């Protein structure tokens, strides 16, 4: 690698917003981590390495239809009223998510013949925490109201739906600029699960209806399961020595006992000089949980309509108490939780990114009053689509953006994002290059910063890289 003019670029980014969508970073090719959002993205460096543990820190949390402030505002109103109002507003498709990522190390370098380095290898290891829980509406209504006002209403037990993952991802990506119009890339991933809690296949219902022999018939169809991996050995171990647990967790960071495979693919296609489009699919993969499993299962059907103590139908001399004891046993069986160690597989949340982009406005040179030939366009506008597959369906967001290279080494991107839950998400990212030091700051949900607790969506990103810049 010929690096006549090595420039160390220090990237440092902070952004606050609340969703897994990284709409500001997407397509921001000055920042190496944008390759994690599209392995077939444009690259404008010869190599880089991330500062260990500092190259990409990402946090985001979001909740649909309700904010922390709705629940906990210190406004003198009765908390129970606020709580009930919030529960009434939410339905079982509303959710909360928390995602956090920490890049442990990363790097990349251009490869290929020295006259045309049109291929690029990148690699890294990052840790991810991903949590999603849907609002268990029917459970909440049952807990708040009971069944008295809900005779004939089925309480759907599949309203309980959650997944939490802590894992590390070791990845290697390959990017090739086939010609000036087409670039593609693929990234292979090995997932190493630290722990997983999964309850996404629940079924059944509880309903109270008018009975035949008695006032009501109570029908229980229960089919619930909570699956865990990586937790049993931490919780059930005899010692309460936290250091031991830390040691065990550390062993799982690379090639732990529950592994998975996945890949990302993506491309960028130049349509005309000014138009291009790109797309990527991320985390097409799974984690196979085979070791250190502990699952809890509740599966039974039962119908109860009370007891007939005086004239029981069975005439075999059974006393009322024997008859009742049988029913009591049935109830105990009904709510008996079985513990199993059955292996299971959890698919990763697949993400789709796509964008159409239009670049315009070349820089005018003062000297000759003509357009600079090789500087490229200064402005870009575009539309981006983001979608993620979640247990209960696809969540999507649409972003419109404006990008501007203000001058060499300073660029900015402003975004406006809509999703089914928010129509006011404005984001801004600035990347500055001063004396070889490149810093960038990203934030979204600007309109909610007057009261972050009232935001349904917030995220934070931080990064630090050395970049070997393309000289031209």
């Amino acid at each position, binding site marked *: 690698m010929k690096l006549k003019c090595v420039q160390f670029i220090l990237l440092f980014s902070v952004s606050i917003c609340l969703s897994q969508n990284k709409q500001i970073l997407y397509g921001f090719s000055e920042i190496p981590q944008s390759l994690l959002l599209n392995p077939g993205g444009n690259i404008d460096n010869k190599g880089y390495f991330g500062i260990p543990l500092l190259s990409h820190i990402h946090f985001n949390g979001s909740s649909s239809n309700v904010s*922390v*402030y709705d*629940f*906990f*505002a*210190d406004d003198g109103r*009765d*908390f*129970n009223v*606020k*709580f009930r109002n919030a529960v009434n507003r939410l339905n079982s498709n509303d959710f909360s998510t928390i995602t956090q990522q920490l890049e442990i190390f990363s790097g990349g370098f251009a490869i290929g013949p020295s006259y045309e380095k049109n291929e690029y290898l990148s690699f890294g290891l990052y840790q991810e925490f991903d949590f999603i829980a849907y609002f268990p509406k029917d459970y909440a209504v*049952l*807990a*708040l*109201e*009971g*069944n*008295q*006002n809900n*005779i004939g209403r089925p309480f759907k037990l599949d309203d309980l739906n959650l997944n939490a993952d802590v894992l590390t991802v070791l990845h290697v990506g390959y990017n090739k600029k086939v010609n000036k119009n087409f670039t593609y890339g693929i990234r292979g991933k090995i997932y190493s699960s630290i722990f997983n809690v999964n309850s996404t296949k629940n079924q059944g219902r509880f309903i*109270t209806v008018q*009975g035949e*022999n*008695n*006032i*009501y*018939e*109570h029908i229980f169809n229960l089919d619930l399961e909570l699956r865990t991996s990586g937790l049993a050995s931490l919780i059930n171990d005899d010692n309460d020595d936290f250091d031991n647990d830390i040691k065990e967790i550390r062993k799982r960071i690379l090639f732990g006992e529950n592994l998975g495979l996945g890949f990302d693919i993506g491309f960028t296609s130049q349509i005309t000089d000014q138009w291009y489009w790109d797309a990527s699919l991320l985390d097409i993969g799974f984690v196979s949980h085979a070791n250190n499993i502990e699952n809890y299962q509740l599966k039974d059907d039962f119908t*109860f*309509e*009370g*007891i*007939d*103590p*005086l*004239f029981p139908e069975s005439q075999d001399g059974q*006393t*009322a*108490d024997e*008859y*009742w*004891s049988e029913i*009591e046993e049935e109830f105990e069986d009904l709510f008996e939780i079985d513990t199993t160690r059955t292996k299971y597989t959890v698919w990763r949340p697949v993400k789709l990114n796509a964008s159409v982009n239009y670049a315009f406005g070349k820089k005018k040179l003062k000297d000759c009053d003509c357009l600079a030939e090789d500087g490229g366009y200064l402005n870009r506008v575009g539309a981006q689509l983001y979608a993620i597959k979640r247990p209960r369906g696809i969540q999507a967001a649409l972003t419109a953006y404006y990008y501007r290279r203000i001058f060499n080494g300073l660029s900015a991107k402003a975004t406006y994002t809509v999703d089914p839950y928010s129509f006011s998400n404005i984001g801004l990212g600035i990347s500055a290059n001063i004396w070889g030091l490149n810093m960038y700051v990203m934030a979204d949900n600007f309109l909610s*910063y*007057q*009261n*972050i*607790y*009232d935001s349904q969506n917030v995220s934070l990103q931080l990064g630090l890289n050395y970049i070997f810049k393309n000289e031209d």
Partner: protein
Amino acid sequence: MFNCTKPVDFEQLDDLTLEPVVESSLIFYDASAQEFFVGGTEQITAEDFVEIDFFNNGFIQDNLIKVEFVFNIENSINRPYSLQIRFLDSAGQSLESFTINTEASANNQTIKNTHIEVFEDESLEHIKRSRIMVFTLEMLPGEAIDENTLGRISLQSKGVFYLRV
């Protein structure tokens, strides 16, 4: 001034009270007049008991604040009846009891009536201590019953459990 937050108070969570009302079927029966005429003689009483564990439970002990028992009785037999329900503790001592009387139906038309028993405070504490329920259905004096006597007596019931969690 640019403020990032407005005041929030997470301790409000301690104030959360859940007040579900749970209704559950209890006992029922449906008997024809002949079931009170066994082996050529009137069977005056039918009695049985069940041991109940329901109240012997920390959650119920702490959070049950009121109970209503609702009984719907229909009688088309030309004989009055009384149903006595007694709550006993584990030693067999009576804690609470009540009686539901049903009139005779002279023309075998169905007589319907509803009886509600409410337990709160001290009487509820008695119910919570009870471990045995005894049911005694007694046929009161009246027109004699034989194999040709018409009519049925039936009962359906539910418990309404008021919880505050």
